[in-house]
């Protein structure tokens, strides 16, 4: 289960974080250190235990399916790195 350099590169790719080559080996060491420590969970007998999904003992509230907010593109775009008219400007997605 040890994390090697290839795994670090793969996970960094999945997480969309460019990790410089000199960080790959140190990250493998750090993540292995954390995961080795975490492995003590295997000592716990969890047979027949339902995984916790929520600490709140109440159902999810329902509401009418209607628009409650919106219609303010200026607010939505106020912090955009790039925008034009009422749109976000993003790098080309489709070639």
């Amino acid at each position, binding site marked *: 289960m040890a994390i090697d350099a290839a795994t670090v590169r793969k996970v960094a790719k999945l997480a969309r974080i460019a990790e410089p080559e000199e960080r790959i080996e140190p990250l493998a060491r750090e*993540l292995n*250190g954390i995961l080795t*420590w975490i492995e*003590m969970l295997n000592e716990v007998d*969890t047979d027949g*235990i*339902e995984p*916790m999904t929520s600490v709140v003992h109440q159902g999810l509230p329902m509401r009418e399916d209607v628009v409650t907010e919106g219609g303010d593109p200026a*607010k939505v775009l106020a912090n955009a*790195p790039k925008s034009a008219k009422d749109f976000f400007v993003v790098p080309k997605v489709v070639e």
Partner: protein
Amino acid sequence: MSDLTRLTLKSALEGLESKAFSSVELTRAHIEAVEQARALNAYVLETPDKALAMAQASDARRAQGEAGALDGAPLGIKDLFCTEGVRSTACSKILGEFRPTYESNVTANLWRDGAVMLGKLNMDEFAMGSSNETSAFGPVINPWRGAGETTPLTPGGSSGGSAAAVAAQLCLGATATDTGGSIRQPAALTGTVGIKPTYGRCSRWGVVAFASSLDQAGPIARTVEDAALLLTSMAGHDARDSTSLDIAVPDFASFVGKSVKGMRVGIPKEYRVEGMPAEIEQLWEQGIAWLKEAGCEIVEVSLPHTKYALPAYYIVAPAEASSNLARYDGMRYGLRVDGANLTETYEQTRAAGFGEEVKRRILIGTYVLSAGYYDAYYLKAQKVRQRIADDFDQAFEKVDALLTPTAPSAAFPLGENADDPVAMYLNDIFTVTVNLAGLPGMSVPAGVDAKGLPLGLQLIGRALDEGSLFSLGGVIEQAAGFTARPDRWW
């Protein structure tokens, strides 16, 4: 006017009500204190103009007889809370100069009750840390120093700015958040009171998300009563957070000073850990003695899965964080670093915007959720989490509350544990269980160590029973007579 910053929130509100001073005077005194304390790095943004405008409006309301519960009281706000028109960064470079166009529910509640905002408080980046050293703005320096020493100490984290500002009298109280101990550990390390309420008490709407099933807001204050006043204002139902509890918020201050006679308090034996300083062990014994004197029945209880809480947390929290922080893609707000194509733009933006600890946690989270590992890690952790919650349920059949130390040590020097993530994580060993089970927990200053540094005791309650914590916390506060304040060296 500097003595106005020495007041408790409660006595400041009384002074405002009796017209002994105005909110403008009280606020000005705090603005000056903040300016003089920049060496502590507690505030990452000072908003003196906004504070004075809010104070003037408060004085006008009070003159009209329309003052709210916290009217005119200057507070500090952790930078994790979105504040409309005021830069909110979670102390991460990736949010850049982000100015929310909306107000978090918790801060909106405080302003509804008349409170005044002094500025935004430093914290670990995205609340990930126990020493405030992961902040993009640099660490907060604890106002406390060891006797005769000048070594800069950590105020704890992630709410280190909140705790330091309250301890150094740079605000009457502060908002904070707690995902694994981020209110209670810094409170313990700075001689302040901090409470993480039951999950769902405070709305998470407008609070930058870290690990959504664990995140909860709460106050840090100088007294138990002040913390009660703040929490009463901050809490309440909010339809925009689906986990917000739709139940009435009690007047928490009414529990402070109530008799605790006959209350059963559990002492979990698993919280005696190897290597714990003798002073913390002694303080715990002292706390037990104080509660006995006040008429509590002390019961030894067992929480057998305690030692598994921290490793379970370091699966659940990074997993949720890796998902929550996927939103920082450089497209809609915050930093954007342009790459050759869309994917490179994402990768470069996130590489430049996130600090090392945040990246580490995103990678751990991505790994444990990745194909083939989900069952072994995330599902296993959620099962262990259920066993931890079951432990508490069984304990609370026998007792009304639990008493433990808050943190395994007093404030430690900045830079310690910097190279060892797991050693840093162990700071939360006594606090993290409460987040996993969704329970309320409070840290109360109870004494000092040989160097004169503050130490805290933690009270844990049943879900929704913050009231008992305020009663018991009040007893410990009074018995401890904790009046020590940091010497002003800044």
